[in-house]
């Protein structure tokens, strides 16, 4: 099996109906399991309950408890067992219940999952998908809203993707499960219930892992974002029209590999760039992206690359999270600062 670059397309094109991102994710696992008997889903509460977000709903019923397994409550154990299962030829799809509860598994993730291909000189790849619901905006109490992508993207050997649309939820998860490398699949939990017209019978062909997409074209500046911040950026772009700004919005979809060319191409055209994400700014993915843009677009830039990120604080309590999360106003204020004068 090799990494698929596009999702499968059915022959007929049935009518699209409103579907949620949660449904698309479930469907992706279901289809992968039906097609490939080596795909196994495992984690806390994923069986009978269907996961605390119901993303694995119905899988245990359809495929049995051996294929969709309620494990003991131990994240290192779950991911560690998945390593052994992958060594024996299975393709485990692991659910970490919440972003901040994946941390006990980091030793397994960093020392083994990310390195097994490398330490065995390519002899033993590990096709494991690690699904992590992440990010805030759902009023979760402490430890339920972390944006932990900076830890993952800093670890060589991991692929890190995050869908922002219903279509991508399906397409990117299928591609992740089909990948021969371990993939950290970050699910923006506040978009779980976002709806779009989508047909599970004929999922549209979406570009695979490692491709960014221009979600909205514009000429005066580029917003670069991913996951939960995409709808916020699109809303900001609409609002900016009143201020005379025609914003382009790039959805990264995949943080590693990072589709630098799409970003560079856009920024060279618009001459201005703002990176938007929920996780903290210091050492966050935006710092890396801004550095790359500066290196490759220096002569095209009309202003410094700016960032709108979460504050560099532990995730705040729910009643204060609205002040922390990048919102439309903060994005617009930042865009205004792109009117740079020396």
């Amino acid at each position, binding site marked *: 099996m*090799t*990494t698929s670059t596009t999702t499968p397309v059915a022959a007929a094109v049935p009518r699209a109906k409103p579907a949620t991102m949660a449904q698309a994710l479930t469907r992706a696992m279901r289809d992968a399991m039906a097609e490939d008997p080596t795909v*196994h889903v495992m984690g806390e509460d994923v069986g009978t309950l269907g996961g605390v977000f119901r993303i694995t709903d119905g899988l245990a019923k359809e495929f049995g408890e*051996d294929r969709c397994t309620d*494990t*003991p409550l*131990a994240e*290192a*154990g779950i*991911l*560690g*067992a*998945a*390593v*052994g*299962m*992958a*060594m*024996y*030829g*299975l393709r*485990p799809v692991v659910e970490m219940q919440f972003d901040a509860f994946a941390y*006990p598994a980091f*030793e*397994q993730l960093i*020392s*083994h999952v990310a*390195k*097994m*291909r*490398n*330490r*065995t*000189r*390519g*002899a*033993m*790849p590990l096709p494991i998908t690690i699904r992590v619901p992440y990010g805030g905006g759902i009023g979760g109490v402490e430890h339920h809203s972390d944006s932990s992508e900076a830890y993952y993207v800093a670890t*060589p*050997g991991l*692929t890190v993707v995050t869908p922002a649309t219903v279509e991508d939820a399906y397409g990117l998860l299928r591609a992740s499960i089909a*990948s*021969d*490398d371990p993939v950290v699949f970050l699910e923006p939990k506040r978009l779980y219930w976002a709806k779009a017209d989508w047909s599970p019978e004929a999922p549209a062909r979406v570009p695979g892992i*490692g491709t960014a997409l221009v979600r909205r074209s514009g000429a005066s500046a580029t917003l670069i974002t991913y996951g939960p911040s995409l709808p916020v950026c699109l809303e900001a772009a609409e609002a900016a029209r009143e201020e005379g700004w025609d914003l382009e919005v790039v959805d990264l979809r995949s943080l*590693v*590999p*990072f589709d*630098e*060319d799409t970003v560079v191409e856009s920024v060279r055209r618009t001459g201005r760039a703002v990176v938007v994400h929920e996780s903290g700014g210091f050492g966050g993915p935006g710092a890396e992206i801004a550095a790359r843009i500066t290196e490759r677009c220096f002569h095209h830039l009309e202003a410094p690359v700016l960032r709108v990120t979460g504050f560099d604080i532990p995730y705040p309590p729910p009643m204060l999270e609205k002040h922390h999360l990048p919102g439309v106003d903060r994005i617009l204020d930042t865009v205004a600062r792109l009117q740079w004068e020396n």
Partner: protein
Amino acid sequence: MTVQELPGAGASHRSTPPPAWRPRTDAAPLLPDPEPYRVLGTGAADRLDPVLMRRCYAELVRGRRYNAQATALTRQGRLAVYPSTVGQEACEIAAALVLEERDWLFPSYRDTLAAVARGLDPVQALTLLRGDWHTGYDPRELRIAPLSTPLATQLPHAVGLAHAARLRGDDVVALAMVGDGGTSEGDFHEAMNFAAVWQAPVVFLVQNNGFAISVPLAKQSAAPTLAHKAVGYGMPGRLVDGNDVAAMHEVLSEAVRRARAGGGPTLVEAVTYRMEAHTNADDATRYRGDAEVEAWKAHDPVALLERELTARGILDEEGVRVEREAAEEMAAALREAMNADPVLDPMDLFAHVYAEQTGRLREQAALLRAELEAEGE
């Protein structure tokens, strides 16, 4: 208000007891024997299989020589480090010999010898310690997982692999090795629990060699024995003399048999002693006295078997000479191979990170290639 005063807190307030969880397993048969199990020098030795014991003897002698050679190679700077298993050879050899070809071994960083006894090329087994690559072999070839440096982290892998094998209908067993210090790690506990809940065909072998670097067992665990830890998870714990290769072979074989037959996991604690320092970077005199080391010399695993086999007429002087010569030949070949400088390709640095190289890595590979070309000019 105290607990006593709470309504319903006292037994007298209860008309019927609450429904209780019943334990799934009777704890008594899971408990280890109070003393480590021994065969050599006891009546149990009457039933020894001479062919198997001759094989064990050959492996022990070879193992002892391998340890000496590898230690010498660190002194010559050929190896970055070598954690010796002198004194622990019986554990290493038994672990390798009880497994069938289709089974899997999950060694820790100290268990080079077990991997070699399972058939791994002695030179390949040392690439990690020489520093030319992390794992010099394909784990699938001999079904030996990479030697794990982070303690106990390979134990859940063994559980997952054994579980996967069973799901696929294969009667494969995984044997995973860990030190006494490693039993304090979270991964040890998670692996034990998963294995017991899943009834995975796994054997956990703890080599209790007295120390984790400098920390003695008493500061590591308050359990009566490490084998007792098994009971809480619902699997049997077995305590065995780790210097007695016959006892080790018997106990591990029984655990493997049980696992293969669907009986679930076993935790085996081998009581042994690390005769040398932790590695060449360690000064063992700072944390233990000569008297202790001397006392263990009388219990040497190679001498122990040699005495038993000689007394029983299974081994004679000629036999001893033959095995020692074979071990010398192995050592000479190892020395020669390790004295040749490995040929390394720096571009390998980028070759095995992802199935398909990322743009970032292609860029960095180009940078290194240019640097190498400039150096070559």
